[in-house]
């Protein structure tokens, strides 16, 4: 009796709640940490990026118009989905990063816990970052954090799942939509996790994930005028040049720092705008 032949998975992009191949038809080989062939992954083009931004822009309004309570539930649902497919994620992280199983399990657990952490932030951030302002006059004046809009994320190259979660969950939890470039060499854990948004009640387009060559996609990401902010943490030595390009449309730019505290809200604050409303008070 012959051994059963595995059914291999095709890794595709996550755009607008669907799973397309690259419009270019291109793909590239991804190998595991041990150098063995892992998969042919879709190699996104600039056009795929453009489509993803269009989807993100449309989705962002729906996402922000949902209640904060609802956004928290959706993010929590995402954590539930990840938890139920934990073993699969562990396997992907193990292969991608070459970790021992135990370390991969810890990494996945931390990633899921961070989604849970962010799911709790959706309906706190307004109170924590906003407030009423006692202006010297007959006005009711309040400041609210509102999402910047569409955020382009260059996910960390090394930390395939935890780094990805850290980069996308924060902007999403405050109401942004994200177009993320997964780790070029280790894209599969991010793709698998992103697929789970399809079963987590995310409006399509809130999280879009592209796989491909970072060097090819980051410049169009940094210069795209309809992207409001960029997280360049995973762009390595290109980071400075990309930050310069991002200046063309006055983007908000975030780069994780070595000494970042995981409780810092710097990343959340980078991708929200404080909107202040004055209203007259009178009889």
């Amino acid at each position, binding site marked *: 009796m012959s051994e059963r032949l595995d059914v291999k998975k095709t890794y595709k992009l996550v755009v607008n709640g669907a799973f397309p191949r690259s419009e270019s038809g291109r793909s590239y080989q991804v190998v595991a940490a041990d150098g063995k062939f892992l998969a042919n992954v879709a190699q996104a083009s600039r056009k795929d990026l453009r489509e993803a931004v269009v989807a993100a822009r449309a989705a962002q309004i729906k996402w922000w118009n949902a209640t904060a309570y609802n956004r928290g539930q959706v993010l929590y649902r995402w954590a539930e989905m990840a938890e139920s497919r934990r073993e699969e994620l562990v396997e992907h992280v193990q292969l991608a990063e070459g970790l021992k199983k135990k370390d991969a399990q810890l990494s996945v657990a931390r990633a899921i816990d961070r989604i849970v952490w962010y799911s709790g932030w959706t309906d706190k951030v307004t109170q*924590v*970052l906003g*407030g009423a*302002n*006692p*202006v*010297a*006059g007959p*006005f009711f*004046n309040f*400041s609210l954090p509102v999402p*910047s*809009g569409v955020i382009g994320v260059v996910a960390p190259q090394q930390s395939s799942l935890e780094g990805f979660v850290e980069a996308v969950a924060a902007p999403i939890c405050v109401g942004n939509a994200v177009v993320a470039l997964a780790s070029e060499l280790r894209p599969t854990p991010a793709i698998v996790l992103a697929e789970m948004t399809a079963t987590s009640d995310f409006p399509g387009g809130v999280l879009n994930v592209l796989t491909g060559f970072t060097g090819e996609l980051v410049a169009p990401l940094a210069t795209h*005028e309809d992207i*409001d902010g960029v997280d360049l943490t995973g762009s390595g030595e290109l980071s*400075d*040049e990309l*930050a*310069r390009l*991002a*200046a*063309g*449309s*006055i983007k*908000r*730019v975030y780069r994780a720092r070595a000494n970042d*505290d995981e409780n*810092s809200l*710097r990343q959340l*604050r980078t991708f929200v*705008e*404080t*909107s*202040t*409303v*004055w*209203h*007259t008070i009178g009889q």
Partner: protein
Amino acid sequence: MTDHSLTSELGGLSYDPAPESASIARLQPSYGLFLDGEFTAPESHEQFASLNPATEETLATVALASSADVDTAVACARRAYTKVWSKTTGAERAKYLFRIARLIQERSRELAVVETLDNGKPIRESRDVDIPLAAAHFFYYAGWADKLEHAGFGASPRPIGVAGQIIPWNFPLLMAAWKLAPALAAGNTCVLKPAETTPLSALILAEIFQQAGLPDGVVNIVTGDGTTGAALVDHPGVDKIAFTGSTEVGRLIQERVAATPKRLTLELGGKGANIVFEDAPIDEVIEGIIDGIFFNQGHVCCAGSRLLVQESVADEVLRRLLRRVDQLRVGDPMDKNTDVGAINSAAQLERIRELTTWGEEEGATRYTSACELPDRGYWFAPTVFADVAQSHRIARDEIFGPVLSVLTFRTPEEAVAKANNSKYGLACGVWSEKGSRTLWVAQRLRAGVIWANTYNKFDPTSPFGGVRESGFGREGGRHGLEAYLDV
């Protein structure tokens, strides 16, 4: 309504000139730089003139700081940061700021006169808005200096270090206060670069720092032009750049600091939409439109330069608006009854003329106040363009002058769409008696500040700043501290 039995001219009571006295300014003929608590000798620098835009006369000459001067200023600020200011407790920093606030109040009349002479804005505005708000800003941030652990940025937020601050010419002293007060409260030292055309009130402020006994080098002031600003932006000894000015320059600055560890906040241009619904309180709407675009000659980044009015009331609003525009008293900024003063510079006047010429060429209907303009100085009569389309340049580009573009809309959704159809996002106005709709609109506007049934109001407790190409970071309120803390 074709035959009029009677026309009641507004302003039947003509007002005799009521000029404020220029001698109150006590200006010196020439100024050096303010470095390490002292003014340098004026003759040790190349000098340039600061003009009174209402007369084109030279008020004083000021030093053009070279890059070597900027080096010195940054070195002074660094030394003051390391040796003095970082060792000064929050409570002591607070007291310096309270002192400064009081001294601004004490010298408010002099500051108002200097501001009006140097900038061209009406004395009523410098007296009633600029100077009191500048003092209030120092008062507000004084109180934060020893309470930073309660500001929501962690248990012991640290200052950033040396801040390079570049400010515009439209509210010279107020912008200096917006920059300096939070920076000093948070524990930073500063190098301030005032605008080329309006350096004088900052130099009076330097005298106030001396009177307050502020430690040497905590604030250094380098007057100059764009090259001075560039030297400050590029200086490796600066940890933080805060800039208020045009989006063009802001973009350059963001590019130049992109590859450095410098922190950056930008407060840039705008094309504010002032949205008027059919149920709005019409008489207050008219005043709000006037305040929105003609306050400070329209030299306001958050000016309500696009009027979006619901079609059902558009004719009525326009009729009343034009009547009111004609009433504006344009002329001598030193006259206490002047509503609209001088354009700040020949260059700005040229830009306004160019853009308004475009407006005519694009087919918008131009209405210009019949006010008489003085022969000398830089002047532009209050102007309204009707029949403006979204695609017209005058509906998209920031004019930064007393020029209003009027567009119409039919539904709240269309109003929001048109308001957001701009690369900018600084401020918007919403006028309606219906609270639920006002909040619905406010929630959807992409703007850092939204004024409902009012416009162009400012307060030190209220965060101000833009979204998209209007910049990032906030000035004012608890939020304003973030720009000067290492968080």
